[in-house]
């Protein structure tokens, strides 16, 4: 091995790959990857539900941001009015639970605006989504400036899986990924699987796909296109709301202006990467955000050998570029993947087209 590692450039690459495998299998990095991927995966589920029924949703970003704010403020309010001891499991308090519920309700509320604009008013759907992003950013920044909360309701805590499970040789890292996380991150895999099964195995799923591919035909056989689209956009809003709650109540415990930082758009790319299927979108989310986790891994357990010296040298000389490189990797991967897959993955045929029922003449 060491002989291979000494080859210039290629050796560094080989060392990096072996380091990656080693870090994923034994570096306790997998729960961090799932955590980073959680809002992306939930946002992508929102996108899947919308676009499978023919509604383009660019406003996931704004929906997440608005719900994140609502979650934070509701939890804070309840926390100050009724302080409670966190429960040993997940650190659950009534404040946090109500915050999550409020976030989901906020997601539904704001997606109602998108549904109304794009389904009933038949405005351009991308413009409608952009409006939601601009309005959510403005409204949350305005309220955040006005109220200036200094306190916090805290966050959900990660589950502590038994050491025996995590240290199982070969597969321990996989158990760790899905158990050593908080409740919202843990729920993601369940939600992804349920949505996947419902979308491809249930009557609702068949109708959704029919409406997204050929709304006129679906209408002819008695499916209410408008009502189904409304319902799917609103359910999608619940997912976006949960993603927002994750950001403030599980990941950070605070709210910052524009804290979504493009996650809603990475979610869209993950959806396209996954060919508009929940499981594929989840894989995309893990891929995109896994790249960001590499930076965390290197900080926690720096690689040895000349790879370690190489990285340490760059970090020494260009600390800011070094950090920004890892922060920016998901954005870069998103562009590359989007450019590489779009031609080959086909969007639902009626995606983005408002439906107008023809009047009987």
């Amino acid at each position: 091995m060491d002989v291979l590692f000494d080859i210039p450039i290629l050796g560094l690459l080989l060392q990096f790959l072996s380091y990656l495998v080693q870090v994923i299998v034994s570096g306790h990095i997998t729960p961090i990857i799932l955590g980073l991927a959680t809002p992306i995966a939930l946002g992508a589920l929102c996108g899947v539900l919308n676009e499978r029924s023919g509604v383009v949703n660019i406003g996931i970003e704004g929906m997440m941001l608005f719900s994140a704010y609502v979650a934070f403020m509701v939890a804070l309010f309840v926390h100050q009015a009724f302080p409670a001891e966190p429960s040993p499991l997940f650190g659950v308090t009534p404040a946090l639970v109500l915050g999550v519920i409020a976030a989901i309700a906020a997601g539904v509320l704001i997606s109602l605006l998108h549904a109304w604009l794009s389904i009933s008013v038949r405005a351009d759907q991308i413009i409608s989504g952009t409006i939601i992003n601009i309005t959510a950013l403005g409204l949350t920044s305005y309220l955040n400036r006005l109220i200036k909360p200094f306190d916090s309701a805290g966050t959900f805590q990660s589950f502590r899986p038994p050491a025996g499970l995590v240290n199982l040789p070969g597969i321990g890292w996989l158990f760790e990924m899905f158990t050593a996380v908080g409740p919202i991150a843990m729920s993601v895999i369940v939600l992804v699987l349920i949505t996947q099964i419902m979308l491809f195995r249930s009557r609702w799923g068949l109708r959704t796909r029919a409406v997204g591919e050929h709304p006129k035909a679906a209408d002819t056989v008695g499916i209410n296109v408008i009502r189904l689209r409304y319902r799917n956009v609103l359910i999608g809003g619940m997912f976006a709301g949960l993603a927002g709650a994750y950001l403030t109540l599980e990941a950070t415990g605070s709210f910052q202006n524009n804290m979504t930082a493009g996650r809603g758009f990475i979610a869209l790319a993950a959806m396209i990467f996954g060919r508009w299927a929940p499981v594929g979108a989840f894989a995309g989310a893990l891929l995109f955000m896994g790249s960001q986790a590499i930076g965390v891994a290197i900080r926690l357990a720096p690689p040895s050998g000349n790879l370690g010296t190489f990285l340490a040298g760059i970090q020494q000389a260009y600390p800011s570029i070094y950090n920004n490189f890892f922060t920016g990797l998901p954005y870069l991967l998103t562009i590359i993947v989007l450019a590489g897959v779009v031609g080959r993955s086909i969007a639902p045929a009626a995606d983005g087209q408002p439906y107008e029922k023809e009047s009987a003449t």
Partner: protein
Amino acid sequence: MMARLRSYAGFMVVPALSILLALLVASVLIIASGLIGEEKRLNLLLPLVAYRSLLVGAFGSFKGIANMIVAATPLMLTGLAVGVGLKAGLFNIGATGQVLLGGFAAALIGTQVAGAPIWIALPVAMLGGMLAGALAGFIPGFLKAFTGAHEVVTTIMLNALVQLTVSGLVNDVFRAPGFSFARTAPVGNAELTGVGNTTLHLGVLFALVCIPISYWLLWRTTVGFEIRAVGSNPTAARYAGMNPRRMIIFTMSLCGAFAGLGGAVEILRLGYYPAVFGTSIGFDGITVALLGRSNPVGILLAALLLGAMRAGAPLMQIQARVPVEIIDVIQGVILIFLAAEVVVRQIFRLRSAGTGTGELQTITRSYGEKVVG
């Protein structure tokens, strides 16, 4: 002449009513700000106080008017950056990234030519900013044309990437010694200094010239005709022998050039590029373009309106204690009413004029599709 005037009036009536409705909606939030803000009392007149100080801040003095024009200048350019794209059926929400790259390039070139005479230093730095912006627009244009990656996602990703790259470079490579924070060296003679004792600067002229140029380009040249043809119906444009791919790349680069110039104006006015540079002019460009109906004259008017709000907001925050962020909320609500044009027409019982928003429809139509070249 009268008929033409009337058609212009018809064109502007829905934007004007949307602004009115948005101000009404925002007054609810302003009243709420009185309730939960520092004063904690119900003051139904607070919106009037706030809007009055907004007007006074923007129009109440010669200095205010100068500030308004200076605030509107980059908005004209970013408004064109979004609006010209809309004409081609492209939604350029990456003006932010193009602004940052343009401003950064202008600052770097500015430091190089800092000692040159102003009539050399300034145009060279501006041109550099324009070219860098064009590059930032070229990338999503190329990706859209040849891979089908939609510009709405790629431009947002580029916004983040440009911001991270540029701030990294300022921190680690181009940081000027002797300042308490990370910034580039001064641009010297390339700086856009105020004329007389106002804030008005030469950049205003650059922006004002771009308005008639883009009007001429869109309606008086073959390229402009092709841009509009691709925007209203790409398939028909292709059958008519035009090349949609080439038009997409050209238009996105042009949009980027406008935004890059806007960034150059902002940075050269400041005189250096700070590592932490947050600006709203990129996103304000979206509002300006949609409010101005992607028409250069409309964009000029919308930029002045938004510039007035931006210039007047600080006084409003001082006098009425309404946070300046209310401007962002007002923008969003204006856009909601603009999008729901049908509803606005119902509220005011207006006849439908069938105004040309056809190019907007192609934005979503092209989503997730490959461009056939």
